């Protein structure tokens, strides 16, 4: 693939500088907070780093957290490229995970089970995103409203599905686990599977679609100027549909990666407690990654590192809630520039 980014290539360096600066501001502000609370910020940040990148095990944990986040980030990023504010990744993630567990009931040899799981999760995610498309395209319902509602529907519908159809016959707190031969193969330690490569591969695929194909070109053109696209002969509905479907597929795959690719339980807890917030965190990852599919990989690892390092920071006697506040401040600082750019371009 030739390195040809037709638009925005020149801005990469300046946005990188902006992100690094923003991260610095985030660390500074949260460091001040820690100091006010009587904790040593330097030590805290050291433990944060140590817990996420300090040794091979910690790195694998970081990357394991990152894998599903990278995929849910794509949902939002693709949406923004098409001019949509698609925040449906959260619910679609549950649906994809449930579809993955359901598909694992079919036993297939030679790793074909994993293939079936991925197809099922992707298809379920795509299908789950169709209502929001139809409502927007034919009834003018804003996608923020419809995807929020679809998220809530997914939350309760998938709890029902887990309890009534997918429940582990021996335990009442989780669904059946995905059998070993249908999981992503383990990469280094049990923590990290090939799922991280799969996530990166999907990012490359999305990048290729958006910048190297006519369909992706139309999607970006509609996102930047629907009127000009229409005048050029594009029916804006088509790119919009593709953006919803593609976003649904990536979030659905994210769900599959979480249940078939990250360490224990390889199942869904009945309250979906091991699935919640992956979709919304993906939104933050997309903002940090400036809605660029390749930058989402880096942003996903950054976010994964914050999550992996959290438990180490607690060793210092800093409560989990404070660690979350610190992380929230850092994420907010890094995401803020992109948020600002988006809001400003919408106000124009």
């Amino acid at each position, binding site marked *: 693939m030739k390195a040809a980014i037709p638009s925005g290539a020149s801005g990469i360096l300046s946005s990188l500088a902006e992100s690094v600066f923003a991260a610095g501001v985030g660390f500074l502000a949260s460091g001040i907070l820690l100091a006010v609370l009587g904790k040593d910020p330097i030590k805290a940040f050291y433990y944060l780093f140590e817990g996420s990148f300090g040794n091979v095990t910690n790195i694998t944990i970081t990357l394991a957290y990152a894998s599903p986040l990278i995929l849910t980030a794509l949902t939002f990023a693709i949406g923004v490229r098409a001019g949509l504010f698609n925040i449906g990744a959260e619910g679609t993630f549950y649906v994809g995970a449930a579809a993955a567990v359901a598909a694992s009931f079919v036993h297939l040899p030679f790793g074909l089970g994993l293939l079936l799981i991925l197809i099922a999760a992707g298809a379920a995610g795509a299908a789950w995103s169709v209502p929001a498309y139809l409502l927007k395209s034919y009834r003018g319902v804003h996608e923020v409203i419809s995807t929020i509602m679809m998220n809530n529907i997914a939350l309760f519908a998938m709890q029902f599905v887990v309890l009534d159809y997918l429940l582990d016959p021996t335990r009442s707190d989780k669904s059946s686990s995905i059998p070993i031969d249908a999981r992503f193969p383990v990469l280094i330690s049990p923590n990290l599977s090939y799922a991280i490569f799969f996530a990166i591969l999907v990012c490359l695929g999305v990048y290729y679609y958006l910048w190297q194909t006519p369909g992706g070109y139309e999607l970006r*053109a509609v996102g930047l100027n629907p009127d000009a696209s229409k005048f050029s002969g*594009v029916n804006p509905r088509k790119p919009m549909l593709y953006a919803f479907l593609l976003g649904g597929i990536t979030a659905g795959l994210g769900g599959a990666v979480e249940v078939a690719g990250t360490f224990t339980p390889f199942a869904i807890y009945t309250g979906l407690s091991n699935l919640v917030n992956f979709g919304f965190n993906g939104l933050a990852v997309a903002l940090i990654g400036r809605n660029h599919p390749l930058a989402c990989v880096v942003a996903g690892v950054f976010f994964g590192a914050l999550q992996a390092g959290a438990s180490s920071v607690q060793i210092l006697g800093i409560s989990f809630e404070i660690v979350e506040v610190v992380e929230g401040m850092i994420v907010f600082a890094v995401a803020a520039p992109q948020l600002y750019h988006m809001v400003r371009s919408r106000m124009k």
Partner: protein
Amino acid sequence: MQSLAEEALRTAAISKTYPDGTQALRGIDFRLAKGEVHGLLGENGAGKTTLSKILSGILRPTSGEIFIRGQKAEARHPKEALKLGVGMVHQHFTLVRDFTAFENILLGTRVNPKGSGAARARQEILDLSKQVGLSVHLDTKIEDLALGAQQRVEILKMLYRKVDVLILDEPTSSLTATETTELFKAIRKLKEEGKSAIFITHKLNEVLEICDQITVLRHGEVSGRTEASKADRKMLARMMVGRDVVFDLVRGPSRPAEPILEVKDLMVKGNRGEEAVKGISFEVRKGEIFGVAGVEGNGQTELEEALCGIRKPSRGTIRLAGADITTLNTGQIRKHSVGLIPEDRRQMGLVLDMTVAENSILGREWEVRFRGRGVALAWVKIRAHASRLIKSFEILVKGPDSPAKSMSGGNQQKVVVSRELADEPDFVMAAQPTRGLDVGATDYIRRLLLKTRDSGKAVLLLSADLDEVLQLSDVIGVMYEGKLIEVGPAEQMTRHRVGLLMGGVRE
């Protein structure tokens, strides 16, 4: 050379360098006398807007000084400029659409439109409006006012703030001929009141009609100063573009062939459901330019959109080269050999956030010539294509990877035109093709349309610019209130006659 009349405003060696290094102004000396209307003329990008923004306190100069009534002044904010008596009426109005005219005028003052001072303020505004002859329905919401009336609100807003120097940025660009006449009347009244005005424009006729003094800017420098009474169009144009501009394009005899576009009994609804195009019929033949003249807002936009497949006609047929295209969408119409130049180039013609290369394939992204292996786009080929267009259409831009939004209006339009004409389509629709463009770009695009016609293609020209229609067309139709009230060969349609028809008057 300058009269010794009392000085209203003067700048000394104003320079402005933008943070990105662009030198917008270089040592501008400018003097405005009291009671004078001073034309500020220049091509797009010459620095007119930058200078006016500095005078009205929106921008700060990099160096140089401003004197108001002989006093050194430094306005860091439009509010401070207003206090010093300098106010600007922007090209794109800055009114709150949901507020009434009255509320808009009071916005930012301490008078509450529903409070105690309201009655007195209303009387003051009414007096002002009578004094200068600017009538406005004070209690109508801005969104319900025509553009001309909105502008009157903007001017009253400035006068109510006791402005002595009024800066008018391209004030006639969205006005009808009648509204322009009214505006000029008001400007003359203001002059009698002892107020001064800076009239920013690139329209030569207007500057000669309304101004006393003229300053011409080119590339951020003053390229000429003259009294309006001693100037003519040729001389001003030369100052603006730095070379002689031929105003009278040579239009050879037309060789019209068979009709290619046939419109029959076409009716099109406007945005508010009203009949905007009320049953018009005409045909455009190969080898001729069919010009549709008319004041804007008489159904031209709806006609344009119907021909492009964006708006569905409610009645009638459109046939292109024999095929019925009435109900086709834009994508299907573009499969025929057509070139469509939209009226609004920034909104309809370009994706401003994309590069020139990306814009050069808009609507053509599926064509095999831009593909590599399989479905992939071949950016190498697309860049080469864009570079060819840049070269053969003399587009001023760094290269195919420059974003479209970084270009001047004229060059943006050239990108649109080059894309639409490069494949030599049999039928070209050009809507307001030179609106807002500088003299050089206008000249270039008009020549291009003539060349298209000379090569045996058909051109439908929709333009509110009467000179343009008269200059280019072989057949002229006049649109008035949704109807094509007269169609005739160019020889029979004199300026006088078309002008009257545009106002709905038949001789």
